[in-house]
């Protein structure tokens, strides 16, 4: 290595940052022991930007994004280390009252399963007017209802006045997700967090919701954190991507760079193992082994080492945890041997 690359530790990014998460460590204390959900994750979000966080189940993608909302129950969760700044305000030390205020106004969340996020015993109308009025008591009930109907129309729900009278169970999964999006954009939040927003939906409905999210974002100019296991959803919506593995962000890059020049071997393997990445009738690239369980002590070294095609038996991968390197402008990867990535 002659170019002497810089290892970056919390270096200030040279562009405006709305939300910054630094070296976050979150554990869950369970009966079976300590679950290391997030092991030093760092990422940032610019105004109006869509950051896709991609990873498999248990990679820590939801926990790291949700910890900034105060929606991770503590206990059992424990934020061991790290910070999360929204415009300079530390969210991890904010009071629950302040977080509630932020969630109503500045940060909105869209969950995978709208059925669990909507209250089954209240009509769509009463839940929406409540969400609108909780932020602005000056709005009359009638005005809030008008606004709710208008929001439903904007997310493509036909006959919105009738829908306001209905209960969540009377709507299809796609319709419920539209209601969730309408509620999320109701107070024009600055940050939208969408946690697997299309995973529970059929492919034709997924396409509609992806289009709707893209439109909502265009209109709101809200910065978005999009949490997903699906690289197709990333390809559709993300501006930048953070790839998580075993509780760490192993690579961050602009979406085009990530798909064209993946540097971390996990990203490279994940892209190659998609069924569509190989011609019909050929075997897919397969990553050997399984993702590590987050339960118990963390092994030293790189969590991906046992499954890595680049490691080639080198001891450093299992003895030393790799730093996050600046591999190109605005492109970082946590691999000792990142210079060996395919060009």
């Amino acid at each position, binding site marked *: 290595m002659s170019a002497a690359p810089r290892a970056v530790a919390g270096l200030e990014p040279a562009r405006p940052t709305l939300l910054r998460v630094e070296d976050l460590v979150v554990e869950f204390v369970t009966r079976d022991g300590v679950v290391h959900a997030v092991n030093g994750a760092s990422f940032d979000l610019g105004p109006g930007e869509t950051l896709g966080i991609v990873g498999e189940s248990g990679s820590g993608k939801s926990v790291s994004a949700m910890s900034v909302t105060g929606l991770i129950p503590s206990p059992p969760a424990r934020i061991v280390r790290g910070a999360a700044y929204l415009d300079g305000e530390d969210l991890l030390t904010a009071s629950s009252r302040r977080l509630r205020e932020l969630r109503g106004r500045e940060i909105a969340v869209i969950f995978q399963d709208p059925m669990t996020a909507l209250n089954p015993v209240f009509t769509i109308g009463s839940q929406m007017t409540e969400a609108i009025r909780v932020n602005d008591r000056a709005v009359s009930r009638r005005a809030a209802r008008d606004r709710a109907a208008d929001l439903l129309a904007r997310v493509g729900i036909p006959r919105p006045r009738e829908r306001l009278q209905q209960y969540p169970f009377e709507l299809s999964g796609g319709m419920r997700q539209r209601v969730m999006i309408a509620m999320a954009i109701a107070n024009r939040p600055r940050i939208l967090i969408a946690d697997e927003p299309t995973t529970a939906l059929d492919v034709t409905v997924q396409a509609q919701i992806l289009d709707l999210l893209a439109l909502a974002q265009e209109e709101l100019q809200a910065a978005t954190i999009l949490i997903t296991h699906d690289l*197709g959803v990333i390809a559709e919506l993300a501006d930048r991507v953070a790839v998580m593995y075993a509780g760490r962000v192993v690579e961050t890059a602009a979406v085009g760079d990530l798909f064209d020049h993946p540097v971390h071997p996990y990203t490279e393997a994940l892209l190659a193992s998609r069924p569509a990445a190989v011609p019909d009738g050929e075997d897919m690239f397969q*990553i050997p082994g399984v993702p590590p369980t987050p339960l118990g002590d963390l092994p030293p070294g790189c969590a991906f080492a046992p499954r890595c095609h680049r490691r080639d038996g080198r001891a450093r991968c299992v003895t030393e945890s790799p730093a996050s390197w600046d591999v190109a402008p605005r492109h970082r990867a946590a691999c000792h041997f990142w210079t060996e990535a395919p060009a």
Partner: protein
Amino acid sequence: MTELLVVDGLHKHFPAPRRGVGTVRAVDGISFAIDAGEALGLVGESGCGKSTVARTVMRLYQPTDGRIRFAGRDITRLSRREMRPLWRDMQMVYQDPYSSLDPRMTVTELVGEPLRIHRRHTPFDRRRRVVELLELVGLDPTFTHRYPHEFSGGQRQRIGIARALALDPRLLILDEPVSALDVSVQAQVLNLLRSVQKTLGLAFLFVSHDLAVVRHVSHRVAVMYLGRIVEMADVETVYSAPSHPYTRALLAAVPVQHPSERGRRPRALLDPGRRDADEPASGCRFRDRCPVSTAVCRDVDPPYRLVGPGHVAACHHPGTSEPAMTGATP
């Protein structure tokens, strides 16, 4: 090639859950055949009836109407007792490797159970066969005394596959076999399934909602919509020259593979106001969501027609290229 499985005009209706009267026609007149050694993919969205087809063919459900022939024998009305010897030749792999394996049984017991039930082997031969099967599905044969909870989802699905292969079946019915697995593990299990299909010359009925997964494992593909097969052809034809507007909508809805392709997927494909369960009373069941429907679609249920070699579609206006889809693009 010889036809191993022939399904002809199959219906499976269930009593309506809440209304009390009427029926849900989960499978509503389905016909297809699978040759020995052939993999047929059955693809569709949730509620289209694809899993009901799998279970009815397996004779876990009693068909309401129609006929099922397996290896030349009519099995439509056979009793459980009469089916038992046939289940050696047709085995099922389930979606959820967590609930489909008995947690109190070791791997040896799980994989050896079908051999014991069908009294195929002496205990010694049985153990040898279990080791052979574990090696075949890529599991460490020294794991024989472990229990399901000691394995990951992908490994459990391998155990399920080993169990299904134990009696040398001729047909494997797979119901969403990789849908519950992590992305990085799906490829392992799909490669394994492809390899056993090829090396053992098995026939597959491969049921999935995932178009990319079906494409990878199947020789031919059937697309289901509301209890019917709306299109069926060899895999290349279905994916590169789909004829039915529903198949085209389904393919167009798949997210792009690369960010540079953004916007290539046509927006607002199907009317969001419609629920799949709102089945029209007459005519084509897709007509209310269809971008090319006309008056005839309202009145007449479209019959299958041959639109190319080995390519059938149930549509009054079968297409061969894009026109239907570009019509829906803003």
